């Protein structure tokens, strides 16, 4: 234990002494964005502990609780439903907490899928070059002109053509993660390929090749660490985009089903009763989505500037 203590403090010191920490501290907007992100993440992932109701357990719902307005706005509201209820009597606040959790899970999962595909193809493309490189990069060029939502819609439509409707609802979350992941890989592949092209002719890589390391090992252990920074930046910026894409797809009715609603699904369900003026069912999930995306985007912008010495 005595040995470990200095190790932790020096690690902490390394963080607090670094340029990145300094630029974080000196930007109030970034600190606010980080706090907001942390708050939303905690609210979402602790939903089973914190949420006042379990909105998608039909046994706890009562239709007589339906369409209660938010408590601060109307005297019809009740304190057990601080942000009101929807037409089925589900608590809006609890729905938002569970919905944000799903949105975040889908967002993170699809960023990871995109990262894995992109990094692999980028490494392969840069390291082997030739025809493989040409094919991968042309596919990337074509895909880059098509927006992510369109690609994800196409993938979803094709999957619907292959499997039946009930099966589709069961695996909807995997379809959507795969679709968003497949539509975001290009940026990673290009970045990784670029730095592989730079690194692969350097002496240390040649030395690794001479001592007989396999190409896979060289790429993963020696080339990959060089691109951690840029990949991290792309991942943060893509997280915001992935959350928006998922919300948009769910809103369009091709994302998560209403039995497992994400923020986008909640907004779609609320939109269906919007004409009658029950605005809180739509507006509160909407505000949560916008705040989450704004906070994540601000963090991504800051990270891009902080990790890129050229911009300073």
């Amino acid at each position, binding site marked *: 234990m005595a040995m470990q203590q200095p190790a932790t403090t020096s690690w902490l010191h390394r963080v607090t002494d670094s340029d990145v920490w300094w630029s974080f501290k000196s930007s109030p907007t970034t600190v606010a964005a980080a706090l907001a992100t942390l708050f939303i993440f905690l609210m979402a992932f602790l939903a089973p502990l914190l949420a006042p109701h379990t909105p998608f357990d039909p046994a706890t719902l009562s239709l007589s609780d339906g369409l209660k307005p938010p408590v601060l706005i109307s005297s019809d509201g009740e304190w057990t439903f601080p942000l009101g209820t929807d037409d089925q009597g589900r608590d809006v606040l609890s729905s938002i907490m569970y919905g944000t959790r799903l949105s975040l899970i889908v967002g993170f999962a699809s960023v990871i899928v995109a990262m894995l595909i992109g990094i692999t193809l980028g490494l392969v493309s840069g390291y082997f070059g030739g025809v493989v490189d040409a094919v991968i990069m042309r596919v990337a060029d*074509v895909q880059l*002109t*098509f*927006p*992510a*939502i*369109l690609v994800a*819609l*196409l993938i*979803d*439509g*094709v999957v*619907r*053509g*292959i499997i039946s409707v009930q099966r589709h609802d069961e695996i909807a979350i995997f379809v959507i993660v795969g679709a968003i992941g497949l539509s975001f890989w290009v940026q990673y592949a290009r970045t990784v390929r670029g730095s592989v092209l730079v690194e692969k002719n350097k002496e240390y890589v040649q030395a690794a090749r001479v001592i007989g390391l396999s190409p896979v090992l060289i790429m993963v252990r020696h080339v990959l660490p060089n691109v951690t920074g840029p990949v991290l930046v792309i991942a943060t910026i893509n997280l*915001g985009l992935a959350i*928006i894409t998922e*919300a*948009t797809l769910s*809103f*369009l*009715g*091709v994302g998560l089903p209403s039995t497992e609603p994400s923020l986008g699904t909640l*907004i779609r369900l609320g*939109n269906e009763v*919007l*004409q009658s*003026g029950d*605005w809180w069912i*739509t*507006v509160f999930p*909407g505000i949560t*989505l*916008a705040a989450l*995306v*704004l906070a994540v*985007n601000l963090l991504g912008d800051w990270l891009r500037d902080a990790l890129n010495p050229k911009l300073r």
Partner: protein
Amino acid sequence: MIAFILRRLLQSIAVLLAVGLVAFSLFRYVGDPINAMVGQDTSMEDRALLREKLGLNDSPPVQFLRFVSNAARGNFGLSYRTSEPVGRMIFERVPATLELAFCAAIFVLFVGVPMGVYTGLYPKHWSSRLLQTVSLLGVSLPPFLLGILLILVFAVMLHWLPSFGRGQTVQIGWWTTNFLTISGLKALILPSITLGLFQLTLIMRLVRSEMLEVMRTDYIKFGRARGLSNRAINFGHALKNTLVPVITVMGLQLGTLIAFAIVTETVFAWPGVGQLFLQSVQFSDIPVMAAYLLLIALLFVVINLIVDLLYFVVDPRLRSQGGAARVAGH
């Protein structure tokens, strides 16, 4: 310049063929076209006969060639969902989408560019800072949410504008237009803002940073020394030199615009091509999806060609020999 355009045309045809191959694979290999056409009680012999008659037993390259030549004549087969000819279904909805996109573009250019010029000329003024902050919010607000909020405020609460559909339209030949009736024009306002706001903030930020850059250059100082009016300097000289990147970005944003059009048309129940595409995705209506894909690819190719030609219009330096090489650098 002619050689440049010819090369661009050849590349465009290659891109179209590649997208055509994707569309053809979708068409041919996702689901069984025969199943989509006949009822459950059709016998195996009849199915085989139909398969032979439709040429589904030919080799894939032959089928692909037939698909391409049919597509070139606007023949995309029948929709699985409505059994109507896909070409006509899309054709009928094109005017609605084009008029919406046109209004959004007008909104972006005539509001976004002046806002960019203003914030670029007076970067320290409080109103510029306010616009900058608001534009950051505009980028973070997904278009479907913006559309819903606009509907809530202007349709549900204030009852000023309609929340869905095109209103009354007037038929001119095969083209249906919104521009000739009051209700049609009112119906255009909210969808155009929804579709355009993201691009507007983007263009505003771009023009602003370009203006900041240009205002520092020598020829602006010389222009002032010559005694030119502020108006002539700001709009005649400075703005003109910000146009090349603006045109590039507008061209690149086409994809986003198409995706946002799908969303906007869904939010406002706008009977356009994007809404048709979404319905076809929900029903896995492969012929419509394939046709839409080809239509988008064609649009990309045409717009990119126009963007390349516009460079020659706004930048006289490119009109000389070898100008094409420099275009690539932008």
